[in-house]
């Protein structure tokens, strides 16, 4: 229990320190001695942290979110997933049900015998125990062993699971899940690549301008790292393929003329 408490406190402190100050284990050498100076990390540029995270509201917020993450991990470990309550039409009333086709402990015999995902309760592919289950819970057995939604027999559109009482509820949950995936793709992925790209040239060229330039090229971390490290310019100079850099036209030279460039 003490170890779990230590892990929880360390996790809360790490999240708050990284997001609030951009560092991890800052000034740990004051507590653990000079040998621990190697674990002092700066993960974000200075003065880029969120002030709220190092103030009391950040502590409450991170604690609540970490409890949610813990619950999510517990569900994953137990082989369950967040699904709609049987008969509910509100997407925000969620409950947990066993994931039958992924975890052997919760899989009834023969429930996932057919790989095309069309096995339904009450058919000849289901045992009698599974057939006695409520009809509303049978829709999630339509998923294949990889958790994907099956296609309809004609292959036109995915079938509406029977767990949802109406098509609107199913579509709203589907849209919610798509929005979550899209937001993760649009926000977390560029952020991660920007941080990676911003941190990569930090060791070679500690100038802030190179770091900012690399972070600006977030979706292309390797290219931005090369740009920030100056490798393409050096390569072009050595091979004689460097293009002349455009310059601002002087007051006596009109733009677009040959003299105004290079």
């Amino acid at each position, binding site marked *: 229990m003490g170890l779990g408490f230590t892990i929880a406190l360390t996790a809360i402190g790490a999240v708050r320190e990284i997001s609030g100050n951009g560092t991890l284990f800052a000034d740990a050498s004051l507590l653990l001695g000079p040998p621990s100076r190697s674990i002092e990390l700066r993960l974000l540029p200075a003065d880029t942290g969120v002030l709220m995270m190092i*103030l*009391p*509201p950040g502590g*409450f*917020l991170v604690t*609540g979110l970490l409890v949610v993450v813990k619950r999510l991990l517990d569900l994953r470990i137990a082989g369950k997933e967040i699904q709609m309550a049987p008969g509910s039409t509100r997407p*925000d*009333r*969620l409950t947990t049900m066993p994931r039958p086709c992924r975890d052997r402990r919760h899989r009834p015999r023969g429930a996932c015998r057919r790989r095309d995902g069309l096995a339904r309760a009450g058919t000849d592919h289901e045992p009698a125990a599974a057939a006695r289950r409520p009809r509303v819970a049978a829709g999630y057995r339509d998923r294949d062993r990889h958790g994907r939604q099956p296609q309809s027999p004609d292959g036109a559109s995915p079938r509406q699971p029977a767990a949802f009482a109406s098509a609107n509820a199913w579509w709203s949950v589907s849209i919610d899940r798509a929005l979550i995936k899209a937001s993760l793709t649009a926000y977390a992925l560029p952020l991660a690549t920007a941080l990676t790209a911003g941190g990569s040239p930090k060791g070679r060229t500690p100038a802030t301008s190179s770091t900012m330039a690399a972070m600006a090229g977030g979706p292309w971390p390797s290219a931005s790292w090369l740009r920030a490290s100056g490798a393409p310019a050096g390569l072009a100079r050595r091979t004689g393929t460097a293009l002349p850099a455009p310059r601002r036209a002087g007051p006596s030279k009109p733009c677009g003329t040959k003299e105004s460039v290079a």
Partner: protein
Amino acid sequence: MKEFALMMIGAALVNNVILARFLGLCSFMGVTTRIDTAAGMGLATTFVITVSSMADWAVQHYLLDAYGLGFLRTVTFILVIASAGAIHRADHQESFAQPVPDAGHLPAADHHQLRRARRRPAAGRGPHELPRATLFGFASSVGYSLVMVIFAGLRERLALAQVPRLFAGPPIGFIVASLLAMAFMGFSGISTG
């Protein structure tokens, strides 16, 4: 007089023991499911903290300082606070013939945490520090009671709200507490001298 008023406002709102100092979080999350239990806990804490403030001042002034036993201060204060809690509980049971389940049970750790919040005024020397220490303890516990009642009201509304299953219970409570702490940060602009 003005100094005392500013000190009490600072103790109750600006440096709130729960939302600004992270003290007393056990009862903050455990007793705030209903407003009546939260109010009972707040009143009991106010009584215990006020009484123990006076008792702690007397012990500090006439015992610890007089005999050079300052290194026993924390242990002695814990004993005084636990005694005040026990006295309150016995008196409550005798007066009302039945204990209030949560408010009657006063965890000494919470009161010791709240007691830490007012260590500086209570540690003052001289007889004139007695009203200052007592008022500081009273104001701190009033701020504690205020936040407990506000948060209990919010949690009673949250119990009827539709929240995602993963956020139900303590997580959404912590997030609401975060918003409440942000609101109380607005008091930081008040100059308390």
